[in-house]
């Protein structure tokens, strides 16, 4: 077994580039429920030492790092854990805003293999807003110890996107994960994301609202998601649309994360 091998070379094709983000070709976001191992995966890929620990809610800011795989340079964005995209706390807002408006090339949703059903709620919501998704089913070793058997092919078939089993702590499965990320980003793997349909009336209402939102906030990604939130009567989204905060949100996602907080979080004063 190769446990606790955080520092050894996992793959020859992978070059960890740490904080070096001068030039990158693609942006990959790491999303998922709290405490599923996003930061551990982030560290394994970038060689950085983002603070990790066994409790939900450690990562409260966006951490960014870089890696190179098959001669393509990636910027990897580690997001705070979130149970859904409808939530209100500041850390979850950071995750949601980046997924919606940061336009990552690929979103990797990290799932806890020991709690597939609960984790799927977020996965289904992410599939609502983007088709370029790869599922990383993490903690496969823990699931095996608990006697849980994961059928990755069934998961992948049902969701319509690649689902790869990984153990972020040891680096198992990272190669397959990166191949899938590369494939989805370049288009060699085509995805058919499952979208929970809802009633025909609901679909019609969404379709009617989307052009109105495009008019109110030109160029905003995910008008469909905003339409659904407006139908839901989400006060936050209503406010963002009327005050024009939506436009600045979209622009803000292109900038590096809040530097001051990020420094404290990353350098481990925690």
């Amino acid at each position, binding site marked *: 077994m190769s446990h*606790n091998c*955080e520092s050894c070379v996992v793959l020859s094709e992978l070059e960890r580039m740490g904080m070096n983000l001068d030039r990158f070709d693609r942006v990959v976001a790491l999303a998922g429920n709290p405490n599923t191992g996003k930061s551990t995966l982030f560290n394994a890929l970038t060689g950085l*030492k983002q603070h*990790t*620990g*066994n409790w939900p*809610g450690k990562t*409260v800011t966006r951490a960014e790092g870089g890696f190179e795989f098959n001669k393509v340079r990636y910027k990897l964005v580690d997001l705070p854990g979130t149970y859904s995209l409808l*939530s209100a*706390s*500041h*850390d979850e807002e*950071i995750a949601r805003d980046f997924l919606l408006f940061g336009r990552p090339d690929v979103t990797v949703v990290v799932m806890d*293999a*020991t709690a*597939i*059903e*609960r984790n*799927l*709620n977020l996965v*289904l*919501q992410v599939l609502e807003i983007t088709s370029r998704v790869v599922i990383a089913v993490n903690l496969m070793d*823990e699931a095996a110890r*608990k*006697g*849980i*058997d994961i*059928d990755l092919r*069934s*998961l992948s078939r*049902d969701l319509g996107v690649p689902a790869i089993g990984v153990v972020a702590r040891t680096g198992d499965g990272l190669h397959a994960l990166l191949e899938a990320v590369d494939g989805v980003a370049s288009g060699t793997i085509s995805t058919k994301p*499952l979208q*929970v*349909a*809802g*009633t025909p*009336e609901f679909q019609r209402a969404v379709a009617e*609202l989307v052009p*109105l939102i495009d*008019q*109110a*906030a030109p160029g905003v990604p995910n008008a469909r998601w905003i339409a659904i939130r*407006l*139908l*839901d*009567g989400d006060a936050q989204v*209503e406010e963002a*649309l*009327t*005050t*024009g905060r939506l436009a600045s949100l979209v622009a803000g996602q292109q900038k590096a994360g*809040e530097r*001051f*907080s990020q420094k*404290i*979080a990353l*350098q*481990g*004063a*925690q």
Partner: protein
Amino acid sequence: MSTAAAAALQRAAELRQSLGVNFRDETVRSLYSEAARIAGRAAHSSGSGRRDFDQRIDRIVTSPVLGLPIMALMLAAVFWVTIAGANVPSAMLADGFFWFEDVAAAAFDRIGIPWWITGFIWHGVYKGLAWVISVMLPPMAIFFPLFTVLEDLGYLPRVAFNLDFLFRRAGAHGKQALTMAMGFGCNAAGIIATRVIDSPRERLVAILTNNFVPCNGRFPTLIMLATIFVGAAFPPAFASAAAAGTVLLVVLIGVAFTLAVSWGLSKTVLKGEASAFTLELPPYRRPGVMRILYTSLIDRTLFVLWRAILTAAPAGAVIWILANIFVGGTSLAQHTANFLNPLGYSIGLDGVILLAYIIAIPANEIVVPTMLMVYLGTGMMTELDSFDDLRTLLVDKNHWTLLTAVNLMLFSLLHNPCATTIMTIYKETLSRKWATVGALLPLGLAFIVCFLVATVWRLF
């Protein structure tokens, strides 16, 4: 508001009406049933032994009767190991550093470098750094790995679970226990961690009270005072245990103040009830040894030490200058200390201690070294080369009593946070008002508490 936005909102409201009241529930329900269907196909369970084991442990460590005592015991054990383990290396580091100071200063004298350059570099800046490193490095190098082990095991959410009923009664959020635990490392980090709290009101309560857990910058002060005042009063075999008990008591007082101030805020300026929340208890996981050593030693210990060194060097220089510029036969440091003395006396401390706290606003780490340097610089004693001299300096030459030690511990626990933390409060709240409150509320409280303790103490 643009007309396009208004049109979109209005149409959305109409459509919401036409969809009927149940469509939201239906959407959520279809999401959940879809998730259950997919999970049922993808995950198959074949019995589980691990889960039972976790639950058995949880039944003990989160039990209403045993939960809190187990927590206190674990904390006491961590402090005891820290204090008992740090004693010898601290003394050895101090011996080594001060031996080198003498050698280097003598060498400078021999080759004819002016006395004030030698004094400034070796007896000012270097001495300050030497104290910071020998007082801080050993306890941090022991405390942080132990704390990280607890964090990696998954114990922190259990702490939050155990303390939830207290925070709820104080009108605060149960996750405040998590941000409080982060404050042990660094209050600035603890304040950023409050982002996990959904409600703005409860988040503000957590931000304003985070200061009442002693951060690593203040731990060495507490440990030093507990060791030389409380520990020394016991036979050597029990000295470390007594000191650890004292530090635990101070931390518990801090938690009590956190709860009391949270309660006070929730009843007055930040009125409101505690909101409900869910917190997962993650499975217990085996901590990774190499990772713990890395995060706790490189990330935390060296990072914090480096920050201390960066602030201690200029502070050492400032003190040396204050102590060596004389006006009317008395040094500037002495003038300032004399000026602050009445105020210091009224709260059971003295002028030098207050001066040290003013100089140490950028970083709490350097309070003790600053204090010592001012005592030394004001000509009350010329040599301080070992931990044994420390007690002599404080008790015999500067008339410290048990009251001074007790109140200094209380003051250190309660007083205003360091400049970085105040800045963080501002960045997180974007409000000058709350940053000011975050600085002055603890400071005011520290003065009041120390004044009351000193007054009552002197009555008897």
